[in-house]
């Protein structure tokens, strides 16, 4: 009778409580993320400059335009180049650093961890500007190289497309390695030390232990960092804008930078820009999905 009085069973009550806790976050995500995503898709079907927007004819015209846009294609190539080179280097470095700093005998651990993590505390714009001045023609790097008689005069790192790309990759590695290292460190601390001891007793050397024990046990963390890194790199923006302005001759421009230019530097075309942004979104989603599939060993 008493359940009738309250009108629900205990399970129902718990469900209600659960939903009550979920609702605010769900609503926020819906309003702040899913609605803009939906709007962006609608806008991506429109065309026109600035405020004079109308639905494109044919409706997917903006997406068709992407196929003909050489600058955007160049930006895709650039971005994927950063992705393919920078992400593996960075993650490998991060995992090695984590391994080193996880050493039980290491002294001043906290100090070293802080040092490696510190770059993440700098703002994207300011670190990009610092790298810009480091690699300027009269910057610190050139001054050192000239003083050491490696170069006769300053090399224009940011004015040459290959070296500009390398500088961007170096900057990215510097900025993000520590960030990923923290995840690995957390992952490593979850691995029982006794597992390593057992391996030692069995005669496994450091290399074997790393590949046979550390990496498999870190797998969920690795997958997570790979996804966030892919996500971050595909949306690379600050470095391209502040370090090189996408130059020389668009050889370092990233996709997001081009999307920004289409909205705010050139005659604004938000429809086309949204279409490109949506394509980036699809790329990220697909890559993340593949990543999850590849990493899934449950069956």
């Amino acid at each position, binding site marked *: 009778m008493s359940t009738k009085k309250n009108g629900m069973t205990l399970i129902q009550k718990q469900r209600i409580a659960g939903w009550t806790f979920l609702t605010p976050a769900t609503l926020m995500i819906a309003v702040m993320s899913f609605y*803009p995503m939906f709007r962006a898709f609608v806008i991506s079907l429109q065309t026109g*400059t600035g405020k004079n927007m109308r639905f494109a004819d044919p409706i997917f015209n903006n997406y068709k335009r992407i196929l003909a846009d050489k600058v955007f294609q160049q930006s895709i190539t650039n971005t994927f180049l950063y992705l393919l080179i920078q992400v593996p280097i960075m993650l490998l470095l991060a995992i090695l650093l984590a391994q080193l700093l996880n050493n039980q005998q290491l002294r001043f651990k906290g100090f070293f961890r802080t040092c490696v993590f510190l770059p993440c505390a700098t703002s994207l714009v300011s670190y990009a500007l610092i790298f810009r001045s480091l690699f300027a023609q009269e910057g610190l790097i050139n001054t050192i190289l000239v003083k050491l008689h490696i170069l006769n005069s300053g090399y224009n790192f940011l004015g040459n497309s290959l070296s500009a790309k390398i500088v961007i990759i170096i900057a990215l590695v510097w900025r993000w390695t520590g960030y990923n290292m923290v995840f690995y460190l957390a992952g490593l601390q979850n691995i029982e030390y006794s597992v390593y001891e057992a391996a030692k007793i069995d005669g496994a050397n450091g290399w074997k232990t790393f590949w046979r024990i550390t990496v498999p046990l870190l797998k969920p963390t690795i997958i997570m960092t790979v996804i966030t890194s892919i996500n971050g790199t595909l949306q690379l923006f600050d470095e391209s804008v502040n370090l090189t302005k996408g130059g*020389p001759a668009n050889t370092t421009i990233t996709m997001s930078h081009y999307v920004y230019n289409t*909205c705010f530097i050139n005659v*604004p075309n938000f429809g086309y*820009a949204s279409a490109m942004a949506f394509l980036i979104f699809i790329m990220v989603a697909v890559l993340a999905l593949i990543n999850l599939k590849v990493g899934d060993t449950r069956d």
Partner: protein
Amino acid sequence: MKKKLMAALLAGMMALSVAACGGSDDAKDNGGDANNADGGDASGDDANAGTDAESGTDAEGGSEEGDAAGGGKLTVWAWDQTFNIKAMELAAEQYKKDHPDFELEVIEQSSDDCQTKLTTCANAGDYSTMPDIVLMQDNSYQKFLKSYPDAFTDLTDIGIKWEDFAALKQSYSMVDDKHFGVPYDNGVCAAFYRTDILKEAGYKIEDLTDITWSKFTEIAVDVHEKTGKYLLTSESTGGDIIMLMIQSCGANFVDEEGKAYITGNEVAAKCVELYADMIKKDAVKLVNNWDEYVKTVTDGEAAGIINGNWMNGTLVGIEDQKGLWQITTIPKVDDVETATNYANNGGSSWYITSNCQDVNLAKDFLLNTFGSSTEFYDTILPATSGIACYLPAGESQVYNEPVEFYGGQPIYSTLVEYSSHIPEFTKTPYHYEAREAVNTAIMQIVNGTAQEDALKEAQETLEFKMSE
């Protein structure tokens, strides 16, 4: 599987933050309807003053009908404390003498921020966060006009004698026969040279006056060999030299109908050829950004600068180079009939936005300061070194005074004189697209692509960007 899909979606979500720009940006209801503005009696509600851009448009409305506008407050977006903002503040001071209740608030925004913010406001269809008056680059205005035709106020009937401004300067802010901007910062170009370095290399300023670009290249190479200094510096991405070269011929990278006109354009081909040649011969130093550009001057690596006269503001700040600089005309393009030694680059004008709640006051203010007062221009010249576009100001005594920094050369009147010779050319909303396409082509040519192929690609890129 569902969970994974969600995870993937979430991972990709950030990609949309850019796309969502035009989205649901709920503006604060600032109640500043047009109705409030002509309420007649000043509500005296100062509570909001000085908080942000909106404050100026709030229901402060102390406007009286008609021309005798007096009290009330205007907000302005502008950049450069020592130049534009200073001039605006001096203008407010002068206007206050006759209108004691007048108030003006200048909010500093970099030129890029001004543009980004205007774009965001206008695209969201919510003008309420815009200021009353905004400063805008001449090169940008046509773009805004095309995209947001209702964001600015028509100023044709403001009462300014438009013939007092140079025709070219006016044309930047005009549509058909309507005026939308009050011309302010003059963009007339000059060649600034270090006379001491020229002397070291065996040249005088006269040797560089009224010359052609090929002669310039010859001298620049020679100067570089003898002294290690460069006569010309330019940004490799977004450099202005190529634009002022073609515009000094009264031409552009678009034709009269506004279509992309790079291939088949002989003037364009000649300019690109000359400029690429300069880069190949190391007659010009390419830098990657504005900081490096300025650094070549402050470090004494630049023996010359060719740019808008506003470079003066940077130069006069370098105390130890005092008396070493002089100005003369810029080189002209070879073998082009319409070529001149005069061009314009990067000036700006004042615009009244359609968010302005007290249009009469804003108009009256601009008319009585920037629009018609030689007295005002005489005040701002010594304070800001800003050269007016207002032609009667150029006859004033202040403009003819020798300038110590330039070894006693009366540069202000000289520059005003230059500005009367600049040829007109077809403007385009796609100025930045054209500049980028051509600069990209030039970098390709320098790296070995045939000029014809590079320009063909530039033409295609520009055509693509002009299509929808």
